[in-house]
């Protein structure tokens, strides 16, 4: 079975039907539709990070690099005043960012532990400064996207990216596919190796596997998906700027992933929802929401280690036990 935990099945069966119906309730309120769309996009990003950190054991603080690259690659290769095809550019962006990830991963994955954390961060900062200083890419202001891509396949245009509800469904569809993709991947033969390498790298080498290659493949896949999320974000808001690449984006995504339950994949959605929900409500209450957020993170590390997914699983298990 693809969804092997009860909490996971429960969540998927509640979340996706609700998310499908949501725009009907929010028809008159575009603000919330946009907010939810952003949460879907962030969830894809956090999920790809969760796979890397929680499933592969590769702790990176530079994942935002690919999130930002998704947007920047688009403005680099797409003509400014002409609608390009969404699907073709999705392919381009994933392919280019995968190539970048291959090169960076080659350097980064030679190291491990603390070193890897620092080096991934340093590379992300490098791209951050590159785009912040670059006149061609608008420096810290970034670049605007004036024309959104069209979405026709074989001449058949199914939806319109300028329509927030359509865009919402595109992101929901992407999120569902990302979840499905990771679930299938984890159950696959490749996934067996991912688990083995995460649990006991030394033993896996002794069994004759070149673990570097497996890690590199995982890194490339997760980075390409992170870039896809960044591409969606750029299309939603019509701009890309260096803050997408900043270390806070990586750090926040890591916090969301932990909050949801590291390595649970579906927890990425939970973590993003709860974090963004808290962020939104605290921001409305006080200007110094960061203080509460910081306190919350510290508290979480201290007492709430398995995240929401772990908490739900324990809860359901306990109930079954009775």
């Amino acid at each position, binding site marked *: 079975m693809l969804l092997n935990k009860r909490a996971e099945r429960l969540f998927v069966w509640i979340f996706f039907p609700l998310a499908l119906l949501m725009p009907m309730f929010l028809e008159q309120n575009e603000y919330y539709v946009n907010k939810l769309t952003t949460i879907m996009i962030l969830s894809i990003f956090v999920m790809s990070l969760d796979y890397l950190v929680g499933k592969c054991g590769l702790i990176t603080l530079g994942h935002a690099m690919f999130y930002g690259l998704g947007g920047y690659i688009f403005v680099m290769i797409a003509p400014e005043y002409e609608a390009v095809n969404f699907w073709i550019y999705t392919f381009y962006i994933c392919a280019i960012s995968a190539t970048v990830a291959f090169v960076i991963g080659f350097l980064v994955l030679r190291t491990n532990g603390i070193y890897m954390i620092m080096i991934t961060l340093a590379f992300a900062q490098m791209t951050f400064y590159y785009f912040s200083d670059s006149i061609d890419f608008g420096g810290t202001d970034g670049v605007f996207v004036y024309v959104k891509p069209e979405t026709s396949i074989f001449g058949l245009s199914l939806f319109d990216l300028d329509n927030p509800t359509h865009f919402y469904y595109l992101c929901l569809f992407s999120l569902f596919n990302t979840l499905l993709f990771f679930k299938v991947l984890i*159950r*696959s*033969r490749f996934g*067996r190796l991912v*688990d083995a390498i995460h*649990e006991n790298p030394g033993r896996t080498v*002794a*069994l*004759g596997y070149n673990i570097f290659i497996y890690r590199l493949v995982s890194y490339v896949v997760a980075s390409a998906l992170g870039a896809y999320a960044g591409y969606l974000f750029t299309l939603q808001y019509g701009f890309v700027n260096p803050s997408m690449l900043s270390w806070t984006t990586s750090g926040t995504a890591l916090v969301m992933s932990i909050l949801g339950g590291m390595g649970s994949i579906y927890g990425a959605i939970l973590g993003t929802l709860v974090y963004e929900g808290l962020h939104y409500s605290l921001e409305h209450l006080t200007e110094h929401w960061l203080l509460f957020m910081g306190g919350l993170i510290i508290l979480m590390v201290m007492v709430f280690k398995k995240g929401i997914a772990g908490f739900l699983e324990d809860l359901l298990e306990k109930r079954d036990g009775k």
Partner: protein
Amino acid sequence: MENNVILETEGLCKYWGGLKALDDLSLAFHDNQLHGIVGPNGAGKSTLLNMLCGHYKPTSGKILHRGESISSIKPYEFARRGIGRSFQKTNIYSNSTCLENCSVAVQRLMGGSFNFFRSRYSQKMLDEIATQALEKVGLGQRRDHIASQISYGEQRQLEIAMVLATSPEVLLLDEPMAGMGHEESQLIIDLLSRLKKEYCIVLVEHDMDAIFELSDQLTVMVDGQHLVTGSVDEVRDDPRVKEAYLGQGDEVY
């Protein structure tokens, strides 16, 4: 009948800084034989095994596999050449089932490790080979147990099963009986006496009774140096061995 030499070392040395962990060791390991290695603590036995499986690189000297030097190949390539090892400290995937532990080992031979979409449970043959490996060490009935929940002795057996599942030619076993009770040790001894008919086994072990019972060839090492190699009887009667062990209160034999 002379058995083929599978694995050889030529003037093998390993220095840690100024410390000689292993000094000029030349040994030959034969097919279908069990080659025991004994010596007091710090004699360099584990260092030797770690080099034979590619975990450490020699400071100087050569390791030959079927006459070909393999000193410079990558650690994972040793296993691909059929040199499998078990570790001194139990080294398994403790959160997975016993079957899954062996499946990881089998999968390298079956291929598909880069297949993202095919379920890891889809192939009967992979399951069967993994199960066979478990049955070979007598863990057939533990197939679906989580590795961390079986007994310590069984975990040691599982480790041997994992090595067997890679279809090796050479088994490097680092104290497989360490920390075991008498009955559990007997199980491993029986297992090894069966296995040595099929494989080239290098066994490092502290249990002298076991090693005397099992070894076809026996090497004694002291302080990183080779002392004597021969049949069990030759070694037992060698005066140098007695001298080396004198005063080693814990090594009674």
